[in-house]
């Protein structure tokens, strides 16, 4: 029984058909949550005593940073599943997760840098967490660049999964060593705000944003996966029927 379920879940076709139902709901949830959270955070949450209005960046910075890190593990785990059980679908998920994770990492870095200017007076400092985040971006980019370099998808899949796994083994070491490096070089004058003092009126929108980002992540990951499935399976009958059906409906609409 369990095996059958596993096999069904591993079938790209089954996945494609099943997720068709979820997609609109996920989209709706993420748009609503992110919309409400942004409006709340930008306009209705109270001003921070020390940082003024610039702290409103937190509502996108922190969710993006959370998901950037989580995204790497999602990518590596699905890659590992693909390597171990040779499951097509999980390779596709891994490949879809890489660019999304990279974009989220970029967002975290960008918003952090923009936040740094009003608070620290500079866009960039080589602080431990920031440096680790930059290295995480490089890890993502490495996976993406490797994937692009291969002409055969199956080889690219396995190579990327292996690289992601090696990266996963390294991430804790990298984080620890960067922390150690930073304490070695006695931090300059920079201090982040103490987060313990965050007020509930500031915290609720943050929570909403975090949940919203998770929904959005799930939605885009599934959407990218579905698209990649079609690309890979385009020779099979079900995809050709699907595409034909679509083009017929669009044609009839247009005509």
């Amino acid at each position: 029984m369990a095996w059958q379920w596993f096999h069904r879940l591993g079938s790209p076709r089954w996945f494609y058909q099943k997720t068709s139902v979820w997609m609109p709901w996920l989209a709706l949830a993420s748009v609503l949550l992110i919309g409400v959270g942004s409006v709340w955070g930008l306009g209705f949450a109270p001003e921070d005593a020390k940082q003024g209005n610039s702290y409103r960046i937190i509502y996108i910075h922190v969710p993006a940073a959370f998901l950037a890190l989580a995204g790497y593990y999602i990518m590596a785990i699905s890659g590992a599943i693909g390597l171990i059980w040779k499951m097509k679908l999980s390779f596709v998920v891994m490949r879809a997760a890489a660019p999304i994770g990279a974009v989220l990492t970029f967002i975290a870095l960008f918003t952090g840098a923009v936040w740094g200017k009003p608070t620290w007076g500079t866009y960039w400092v080589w602080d431990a967490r920031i440096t680790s985040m930059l290295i995480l971006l490089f890890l993502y980019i490495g996976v993406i660049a490797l994937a692009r370099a291969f002409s055969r998808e199956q080889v690219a899949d396995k190579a990327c999964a292996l690289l992601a796994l090696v990266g996963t083994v390294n991430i804790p070491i990298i984080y620890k060593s960067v922390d150690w490096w930073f304490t070695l070089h006695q931090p300059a004058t920079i201090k982040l705000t103490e987060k313990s003092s965050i007020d509930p009126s500031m915290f609720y929108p943050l929570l909403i944003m975090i949940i919203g980002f998770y929904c959005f992540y799930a939605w885009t990951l599934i959407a990218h996966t579905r698209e990649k499935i079609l690309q890979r399976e385009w020779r099979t009958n079900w995809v050709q029927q699907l595409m034909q059906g679509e083009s017929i409906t669009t044609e009839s609409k247009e005509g």
Partner: protein
Amino acid sequence: MSSPETTAQSFAPAARTVPGFAPLFRSELLLALRRRADIANPLLFFVTVLALLPIGVGPEPELLARLAPGMIWVVALLATLLSQESLFRADFEDGSLEQLALTPQPLYFAVLAKVSVHWLVTGLPLALLSPLLGMMLNLPDDGYLSLFLSLLLGTASLSLIGAVGAALTVALRRAGLLLALIVMPLYVPVLIFGTGAVQAAVDGYAYGPQLAILAALLAAGTALAPLAAAGAIRISLDN
């Protein structure tokens, strides 16, 4: 060169069966764009090495600001250099380089086409990205424009000089580091005037003269380097 009167009428002169500058340039660009990842690589190398640097020497902003012009230039130089190892490699291995050398046209244009495309996909993006790296390394505000301009001119010279080295080493199997050795000393003038321009700008002086010298180096390079590279290719092919 070709003397059609002695040839049987039905044959076109061979010159028509070999590509001129425009088609060469086009197919080089096509190859480069098809391998878009290859374009990104020197850039990413540039960023990654510059990110390792503070990890190596420590994160103190003043120190980094002091280092920024020199380091950005040295790493840009390395990125250009390393991306040039493969400039003629694939063509050499599959025999296209020999085919080019067999044509009656001078190799000059073929080399120029390759170098131009190389600069378009390597030097230009490096120059465009340099302000970002300057920011990350705390470069003082006055330095950005001179950094950009000096890299724009300088990387073109670097590409030209590197092509000579790449042509000399194309017949060797593991040329990567050998290329670096041959070419690096030739890079020194470019490096000196490039960092000189940025340093002058940071210190508040005029940096026009340095840029002028870089431009002069570029002009000389455009005239001479492809000639030298063409000669080097012919030497490499005679193996």
